[in-house]
């Protein structure tokens, strides 16, 4: 298929961010091209497939059985010694999804709105006029081609090079990301059909956690995230955990192996430049405590589409114009993520013993608030009241020493 060589918007990456953005751009009447290096929208997934209700709503797609495969009403947090804390309220509902279908549906909606897709097409560089990005260089079917665009949107995921081509600094420091590994398995007995299970502990998953996300009929994503700077692999920790629960997994086996890296940090300092905006994992827009990023990337895609429309209409794709996108993101999501990052930094310093105290004494409702960057004060107070040595630790954390 030969498409035109000039577009209003070219989006690199057909993940949830790219396709959500593409649909919005096309609906606003802009000519929109999406390219992806893969031969199929979707797989292989780098994902545990958990999506909370607010993001399901934002996706603009009805949660049908085609993709929203298991309704979730809460989570069970399991402490290092096995204490279970059940958290469930209106904020903890959502779905475990079949991501390959979700991504395809998002692309189908974008195509319905008028966007075009090119697969097996890798962006290898950017076209520039001075310091303004004016399009992309691609490798398609082994041939080098060039496509011009008024605006380029880098939605190329955690290993984004497109943002780097534009001179933006996106290297992910090892301490600011988790190494992730997962098996999708069948035959997994569950604690509760409608709850996600999260297992904590320094031996279980340094800094991170093991998750079991139910997908219905005994199918589940069993995965792990561990601190990126650990030389022992995520695979090692997950295999060890499954072996330690051999009885539970005796009738289970894998149907998929998934791997990936999860940014658990603040977004990159600047996610725009003349003629280009960066969204989603490529800009590190991930909830720093649980690593969920599908929602934030779709939301950023919508914001970038708004700014793209304004820029194209005004004939002004300068940084001054595109900065509006970053400002909006900071306002709507950045502030919340910054608070959540504080929570992550607090929790990663806790000993297993302190974790037990929290599991024992803190109201489960507070645990839910933590995921939204609230309630840290209450947790610190509880910890200090129960454990004198925690007082020193809490002080040093609060004073940043």
């Amino acid at each position, binding site marked *: 298929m030969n498409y035109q060589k000039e577009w209003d918007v070219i989006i690199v990456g057909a993940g949830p961010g790219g396709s959500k953005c593409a649909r919005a751009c096309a609906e606003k009447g802009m000519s929109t091209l999406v390219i992806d290096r893969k031969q199929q929208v979707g797989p292989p997934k780098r994902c545990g497939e958990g999506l909370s209700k607010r993001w399901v709503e934002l996706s603009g797609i009805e949660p049908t059985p085609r993709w929203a495969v298991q309704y979730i009403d809460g989570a069970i947090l399991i402490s290092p010694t096995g204490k279970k804390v059940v958290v469930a309220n209106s904020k903890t509902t959502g779905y475990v999804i079949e991501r390959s279908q979700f991504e395809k549906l998002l692309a189908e909606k974008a195509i319905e709105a008028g966007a075009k897709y090119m697969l097996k097409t890798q962006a290898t560089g950017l076209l520039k006029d001075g310091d303004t990005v004016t399009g992309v260089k691609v490798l398609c079917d082994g041939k080098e081609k060039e496509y011009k665009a008024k605006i380029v949107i880098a939605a190329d995921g955690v290993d984004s*090079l497109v943002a780097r081509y534009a001179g933006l600094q996106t290297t*992910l420091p090892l301490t600011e990301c988790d190494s992730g590994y997962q098996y999708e398995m069948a035959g997994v007995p569950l604690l509760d059909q409608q709850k996600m299970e999260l297992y904590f502990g320094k031996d279980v998953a340094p800094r991170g956690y093991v998750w079991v996300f139910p997908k219905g009929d005994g199918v589940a994503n069993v995965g792990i995230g561990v601190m990126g700077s650990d030389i022992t692999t995520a695979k090692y920790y997950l295999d060890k955990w499954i*072996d330690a629960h051999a009885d539970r997994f005796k009738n289970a086996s894998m149907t998929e192996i998934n791997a990936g890296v999860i940014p658990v940090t603040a977004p990159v300092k600047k996610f725009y430049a003349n003629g280009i905006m960066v969204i989603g994992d490529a800009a590190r827009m991930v909830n720093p405590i649980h690593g969920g990023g599908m929602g934030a990337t779709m939301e950023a895609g919508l914001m970038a589409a708004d700014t793209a429309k304004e820029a194209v209409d005004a004939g002004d794709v300068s940084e001054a114009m595109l900065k509006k996108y970053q400002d909006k993101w900071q306002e709507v999501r950045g502030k919340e993520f910054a608070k959540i990052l504080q929570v992550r930094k607090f929790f990663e310093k806790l000993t297993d013993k302190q974790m037990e105290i929290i599991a024992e004494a803190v109201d489960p409702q507070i645990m839910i608030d933590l995921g939204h960057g609230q309630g840290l004060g209450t947790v610190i107070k509880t910890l200090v009241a129960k454990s004198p040595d925690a007082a020193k630790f809490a002080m040093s954390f609060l004073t940043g020493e």
Partner: protein
Amino acid sequence: MAAKIDKELCCYCGGCASVCPFSALELKGTYVKCDPEKCVDCGICVKICPVGAIEVKGQRGENK
């Protein structure tokens, strides 16, 4: 210099490319390429790899 990637182990997740400060690694459709012109053998990518598929200066992530 170049990071050695074990194709048998690699899951094509792109993790290594995310952390390489020198943009030496690139995930292609179905393989990972290390550009020997850019790689400085710093070993950062070794640690992030979820499956221990990368070797730099004899160092490799540990699997069970």
